[in-house]
Structures are given as C-alpha cells and as structure tokens.
C-alpha cells in the first residue's frame, strides 16, 4: 500500500505551507515519514528529505533526535494525548528544554513559565504547576504549542492543530500561531482537512488525494482558480457563512482506499470529466501553480466555472 506516493515539496524560511485533504489522503503520514516517526518494520520510506541542505532519510537516530524537538517542532491534533496526564505541564515543557539545552532545572522551569505566558495562558506562575486535566481544550493546545516552541524551532509541523477546538478557540490558536511565526521567523507546515483554515493562514497550499499531490500553488491562486477537479469539488462542498447556495457541489462516491488506488489518475473514478487519457497517471505540471490533471488549460477554465459555482449565489 502506498500511503504517500511521489510527494515533492519545499518549504521556504518563514513560509506557511498548508497540506489539505480528506481522511486517508496521506497528509499526516507524509510528515511523519519525513521526521522518521514511522518505525514499524513494514514501513519503507524512499526519496529524499532535506532540512537546511542536510539529508534526513537514513540519518542516525541519535542525530535525528537532536533535530526533532529542537529544530523541528511538532503540534499534534489531540492535545490530551500529546501531554502525559501524570506530570505537571511545567515539568513536561521543562523536560523538553533540558533534553536539548544545557540549562539547570530552575532555568528550564523559568523558561517554561515564560513560554506559557507567551502563548497566552493567564497566571503562568500558578498554571505551571497544574496537571493537563486542569486545562481546557484550548489551553491544553496552547501548552502543546509552548512545548513545540520551547527550543525556537526553525520548522513547525502542525497536524490538525485546531480540529478538536471550538471556532472561537480556533481563532485564538490561529492568531497565536501567526504571531509566533512573526516573532520567531519560523516556517510552518499546517496539515488540515479544512479549506477555511488554510485560507486563514497558509501562503502555499498542497491539495492531496490518495497519497498523491493533486494540486500545489499559492493559496489565493488555488482558491480563486483551482485547476484540479478534486479541488473544485472540495471548494464547492464547503457550506459558506457568507452566502447561501441552494445545493452544495458534491463529489460522487467516497475517498479511495489507499489499498487499491487506481493505476491511472487516482481521482478518475470519482471525476465527472475523466476521459481515455486518465488511465495514465498524470504528473504534476504547470508553472508555479502545479496540478496533476490531464485536462487542457482551456478545458479547465471552462469546466471550473460550472463546477465551483454550482447553485450560484442565492
């Protein structure tokens, strides 16, 4: 089974790249495999992953451990599972600092308090000695972010950081991530299923389907002029707050199982616009704004108008 198949991606300094896709599209697996977090015997990762010019695939565990947590921070979806329930949050943050920096316990604790303050937790002096269960969901996610930021990582990988949160809390966290990115000049890879979240924060978007990149481009270009029929479907299916449409565009069928991805275009079985050429696997093509679809540019312009605007504005 190919969970991720042929993903090539570069993240610039200070850039926010959003990876969007539905469940099973390989968005999380792609990032985990880059960081060497997939260790099961039946996993094989091929290709090349370079961080500041240094090859990560095949790097010794010891060296990888130094990078992970220090240069590359990670935020997971569920803040309750990312924190251990039996230790105080301050201890958990301090532990990470002490693993990577030569500081005393007292210094690490002091830094933990500062970090809690930076991510907007009120009364950090008191909260540092509390357990994760004493925090609300949004506050826990702030603790996880504080932990990821503890060593000023150059790259932050956030896997559905706001999916478990309410919309007002999500807004707080997204604002916080934007602010921290400004302060620390870090790059962010944001994994999400929510096009809206992508639109809020990402500079560049990667749309994934069945483990393969379907479209890559500047955020605004992807939202304004999506090139791949799957992206049209994704955008058309989102119920909007600003306008009411009589019907939502749908993509027929369900996301393909990674166990039997078609040999040609992975999206072809669900695509209204497929033709003979689609039996052959398309490669990413384009100039800056790339997509993996065999339709010609003229066809795309014509078909997109009908697909994305289904129902029109009521």
């Amino acid at each position, binding site marked *: 089974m190919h969970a991720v198949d042929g993903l090539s991606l570069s993240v610039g300094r200070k850039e926010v790249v959003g990876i969007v896709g539905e469940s099973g599209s390989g968005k999380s697996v792609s990032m985990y495999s880059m960081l060497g977090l997939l260790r099961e015997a039946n996993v094989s990762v091929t290709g090349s992953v370079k961080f500041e010019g240094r090859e990560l695939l095949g790097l010794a565990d010891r060296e990888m451990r130094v990078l992970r947590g220090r240069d590359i921070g990670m935020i997971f979806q569920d803040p309750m599972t990312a924190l251990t329930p039996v230790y105080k949050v301050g201890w958990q943050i301090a532990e990470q600092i002490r693993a990577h920096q030569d500081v005393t316990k007292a210094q690490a604790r002091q830094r933990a308090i500062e970090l809690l303050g930076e991510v907007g937790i009120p009364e950090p002096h008191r909260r540092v000695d509390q357990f994760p269960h004493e925090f609300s969901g949004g506050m826990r996610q702030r603790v996880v972010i504080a932990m990821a930021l503890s060593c000023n990582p150059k790259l932050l990988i956030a896997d559905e950081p706001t999916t478990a949160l309410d919309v007002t809390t999500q807004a707080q966290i997204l604002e916080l991530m934007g602010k921290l990115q400004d302060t620390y000049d870090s790059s962010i890879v944001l994994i999400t299923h929510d096009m809206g979240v992508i639109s809020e924060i990402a500079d560049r978007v990667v749309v994934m389907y069945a483990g393969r990149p379907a479209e890559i481009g500047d955020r605004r270009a992807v939202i304004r002029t999506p090139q791949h029929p799957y992206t049209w479907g994704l955008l058309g299916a989102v119920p909007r*707050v600003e306008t009411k449409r009589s019907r939502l565009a749908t993509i027929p069928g369900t996301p393909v199982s990674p166990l039997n991805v078609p040999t040609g275009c992975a999206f072809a079985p669900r695509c209204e616009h497929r033709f003979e050429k689609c039996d052959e696997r398309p490669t990413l093509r384009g100039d800056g704004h790339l997509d993996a679809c065999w339709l010609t540019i003229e066809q795309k312009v014509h078909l997109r108008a009908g697909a994305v605007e289904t129902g029109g504005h009521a």
Partner: protein
Amino acid sequence: MSDEVLLRATNVVKEFSLRSPGLRQRATMRAVADVSFEVRRGETFGIVGESGCGKSTLARCLVQLMTPTSGSVTFNDVELTTLSRRKLRPYRRQMQLVFQDPYASLNPRRRVGDIVAEPMRVNKTGSESEIRARVLELFELVGLDTASIQRYPHEFSGGQRQRIGIARSLSLNPSLVVADEPVSALDVSVQAQVLNLMADLQERLGLTYLFIAHDLGVVRHVSDRVAVMYLGEIVELANADDLYAAPFHPYTEALLSVAPELDDGTQAPRERIVISGDVPAPFNRPSGCTFRTRCPFATDHCAQVAPPLVELTPGRFVACHYPRNRSTTSI
C-alpha cells in the same frame, strides 16, 4: 414552511447535580437555562453553539430522552413533560433522532436491514413482509444499495452509515427529525452529499428538522431560522439570512467574524473579533449576562442585570443590553 407551531419549548431548564473539581460539596450545573422557542411545521430550525453550550442536552429534553428540570415542551399543542411513558409512545414515533457518530450509533453486531427495521418491529407497524418491503423502500430513499441490507455496519463508510441512521430515523414516518451534529464526523465531500440528501428528504416528505451543529457554515446552509446558544441560553434567534447578515448579539458577531472563510484575495478584509478566554464552567455561571466575562462591550449594568431575550425587530430576538448592528435607531 407554515406558521403552524409543531414543537414549542417554554422556559425549559435542565440542571444536573454533580461534584465539581475544586468544590467540596455538590454543585448544581445548569446545562439548559430557561430556553423558550418554537419550531414551525416544515421548517429547519438550526441551533448553533460551541461545545458545552447545552445544545445536545436541550435536544434530549425536547424529545423526552431526558426530563427537563422545569419548563414545558409541547408537540402539536400536547404537553409532553407530564405524560407517562406509555402515553408518550405515540409522540416518540413522531420525533426521531439522527446522531453525530455513525460508528457509535449503529449496533455493530446487527445487520443494517435489521437496524432500520427495529423501530417498526418495536412499534408493530405491520407484518414482517410489510416491514421488509418498507426497509427496501427506505434504503432506496436514502440512496443505499438495496442488496446491502444483509451486511453489517463495519462494511460501510461513514457517509453510508449516516444514511443508514437517517433511514432508521425515517422508518416510522416522523414529522420531526432532530439531527444532532449529523455531519460533523464526515469528510467535507461526504458531508455535502448527506446535507443534500437531507434537503431532498425534507422536500419529498415534508419533514421538520431541528438541526444542531457547531459549524456556522453548515447551519447557515440548512436552516430557515437559527438560534445561537451560549452557556445554556439562547442569546440570539432570527431568520438565518438576517442573523448572518447583521448579528445583533456580540457573541454571534464574534463567532461569525472568526468562522474560517475561503479568501481568494478579492474580498475586502474582514474585521475579526477574537474574544479572549474560555467559556465559564456551567456550575459557576457569571452574574447578570453570562457572556459579559468575555464581551468587549460589557458594562457594570451587564454584571447586575441579566438581559432577557426580547424581540428587537419583528422575528429577531436577542438577549443583550447593547445590541450590535442596529444602525437605524438606538435602543
């Protein structure tokens, strides 16, 4: 949609007694605090709110899966809260639920055909062959393959399972379907399919929906009228178009301003109102207006006097001393 009221809630309160963290003695938690509204026949009434605002508890109180602590719930002008279990039965048939989690709400050890037939067997609506015919009809209605009735829930995807849950809810020809977060566990492409299906069914069968969700876009898309809940109370209730165009309550305004939108660079930048802090714990409700602890416009008055839900303009209700977006006249 008609003006005929199908379901009416009046001053519904639901309290739970519990031991809260940090408190020695038992505390009373007000999950639903004095909620009144009516659902009209044929409409979709949306309830939107964040986790813990009491929207699911309210739904359970309405369909009598929980008895409200006080208040009245009428269905077709019949008071439900005082009925015995036996007398309630015919009304239960008319009010059916669709649940959030299509994995937890279907018994994994039963065939899906039996799951859909179960309500009819319990209510003895007909002979076994009539019930079987009805199951096939329902499968067709919700767009499932009728050949799959012998299969088990695990053989279906999330979207298909939600269709099975919808088929089950329709088996007794209810007039009201209460859908509690029916699409929030689904991928966006599948979510759109289920929302379209629900719209089709409403049109074909003349259903009334009470639609509960946290997703503002989803609620906007399906609802004729919307109630916004905060900490167990309805803070605003209005026609969906009016509410989304110009919210009166500061909480609604903040919610809408931070709902992620697709920005392609052509829209004017919106002013986002990021409210600080968390929702207070429901066993420790603020005095006066419950939203005042997070409200950017709160005054001393808000701490002392709880604003009642009043009809500010025809059909638009808001519980706020200082409503927003009221450019025409001052209050």
